């Protein structure tokens, strides 16, 4: 299959790149392939990865969601606030933040698809709103849950076969979303939306409803990422967990998702997340400092985007 296939079968070279990187990494640094490190690399991608999956779906629909970083923060804080010592409210501590994330997505979706607001600016506005509200709620203080319920903690700290549960949650989401995007009417309509929204509308697609749903999914996934952060650390400085939207966007783009909509696959985004995780991990192991890591990220992103636009121009 060449690049000239339909979006849900669009084969990106991200998987071979991942393979080459893993081989390269193990050559560069012997301990890279140790089970503990592999598990760490897998987990490292989970939180950004879940945000990136939502971002991918919104992008395929032809829009942006830059409010997700704020939603991550909101959900992490809410989950900790809702998880008091008695541990009876585990379900609530997971479901309520996710529902709130869905609400944020709903408002974004209404603004973008119903009112026709520019999605970049609208979701940046939403980001400021949510961050301000969360910081006001906790007065800028640490949030903490000292005796979180076992189940809640185990979400990201318990392991099965040496791999944290959260990695399985992520893999499950990747599979579920892949099926959703490639094999359901909803997924097909999201691709149509990103291809040509007016054409989709004239062809009878319920564009407003479908578009809003992409934002709701993105909001809920970002909130889930926040819940996993809460489960992973139990104590937070809210401002320290900001800014997840840009790495998520980077991963989606690296995985071949088009910024103009209509092209992309959740599984490719997952591969891109691990490409970034491997690069970061190796550079940290080799003790490259933050500025160098930033530079490398920028170069990788530019190269990837240049490659994809060249590939699309050719087809």
């Amino acid at each position, binding site marked *: 299959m060449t690049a000239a296939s339909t979006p849900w079968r669009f084969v990106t070279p991200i998987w071979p790149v991942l393979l080459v990187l893993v081989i390269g990494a193990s050559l560069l*640094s012997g*301990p*890279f392939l*140790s089970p*503990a*490190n592999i598990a*760490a690399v897998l987990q*490292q991608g989970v*939180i950004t990865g879940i945000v990136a999956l939502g971002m991918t779906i919104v992008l395929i629909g032809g829009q942006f969601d830059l409010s997700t970083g704020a939603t991550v923060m909101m959900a992490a804080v809410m989950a900790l606030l809702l998880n008091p010592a008695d541990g009876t409210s585990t379900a609530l501590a997971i479901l309520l933040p996710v529902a709130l994330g869905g609400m944020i997505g709903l408002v974004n979706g209404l603004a973008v698809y119903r009112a026709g607001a520019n999605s970049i600016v609208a979701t940046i506005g939403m980001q400021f709103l949510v*961050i301000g509200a969360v*910081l006001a709620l906790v*007065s*800028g*203080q*640490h949030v*903490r849950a*000292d005796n979180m319920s076992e189940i809640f903690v185990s979400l990201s*700290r318990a392991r099965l076969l040496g791999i944290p549960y959260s990695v399985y949650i992520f893999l499950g989401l990747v599979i579920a979303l892949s099926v959703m995007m490639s094999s359901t009417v909803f997924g097909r309509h999201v691709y149509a939306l990103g291809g040509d929204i007016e054409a989709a509308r004239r062809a009878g697609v319920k564009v407003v409803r479908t578009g809003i749903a992409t934002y709701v999914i993105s909001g809920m996934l970002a909130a889930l990422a926040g819940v996993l*952060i809460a489960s*992973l*650390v139990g*104590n*937070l*400085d*809210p*401002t*320290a*967990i900001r800014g997840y939207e840009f790495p998520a966007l980077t991963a989606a783009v690296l995985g071949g998702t088009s910024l103009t909509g209509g092209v992309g696959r959740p599984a490719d985004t997952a591969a891109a997340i691990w490409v970034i995780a491997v690069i*970061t*991990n190796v550079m*940290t*192991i*080799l*003790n490259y*400092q*933050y*500025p160098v890591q930033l530079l490398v990220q920028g170069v990788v992103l530019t190269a990837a985007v240049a490659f994809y636009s060249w590939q699309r121009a050719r087809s």
Partner: protein
Amino acid sequence: MSVSLKISRRVAVAAFASFMAATSYAAAAEKIVIGHSQPNLGWPYIAAVTNALEAAGKGMEGVEVVTLSADGDIAKQSSDIATLVNRKVNVLLVTSLDGNAVVPALKKAADAGIPILAVSNEPSEAGQKLLAGYSGPDDYVQGVIAAELLNDALKGEGAIAIIEGSPGQSTTLLRTQGLKDGLAKLNSKITIIGSQTADWNPVKAKDVAQAFLTAHGDQLKGVFAQDDNTGAAAAEVFKAAGRGDIKVVGTGGTINGLKAIRDGLMYGTMDQSPTTDAKQALDFAVKLAKGEKLAEKRNIIPMPKITSANVNEFKGEW
């Protein structure tokens, strides 16, 4: 056109009246206005000090505390200080985001004859000449204390790594420098084999901790984390990897840090009490506003070392 002219004239009259009212009110009330420029109210320690300061100020007759937060933007802090100077506050408290970048703004305050008290961190040398005094903890000294704690814990030798705060912030730079100088002063054989930013984010701290383990394996004996949250998060990774023997020293004496020491995760930290910090700052501020001088220019709040031996004496405030 004529309507809008009328309106604007009326507004101008109202403005003038309210301006007059405001000036006369300020003259009559003779209260002390304390202006406080903060780097970011989203940072827990800063927020805690601010809350404590405002609460203590409310309890005092005739004292008003005005806080402006720079939201992490050094240009905004410069404007914030100018705004406070314009308001003719009686004393200016400054917690600088960047010790160099506040200096020109401090000059303006000094030129206006407003006494300046640096709180929680100090400006650079050029700015220190302008200060009436300094009150608070000391980022550099915290690095030195961390060096002492690690030196004790590792009996003077071994390899350590640093989990840093956000790159480029003076807090990060000073704590790292303090650690290096502290180790040198102690003639310690401890070597620093790696340092990585965790951006104050415990999630990233876990990734960094795992990378340190992978890179250095058994060689790694200790870690200096520049706040307790990242320290506790790293210690959890070490424990899960069966390397509970790695000595982790945090910074801040937060509730979370104390818990980590009690649970045997972290080796130690040093206390940094926002209420002590705020109370001392407020006392000094009132003194300065009344035209008095401080006995000492630099007033570092006590930053006692905390280890499992004395952890129960501390309750943690933030």
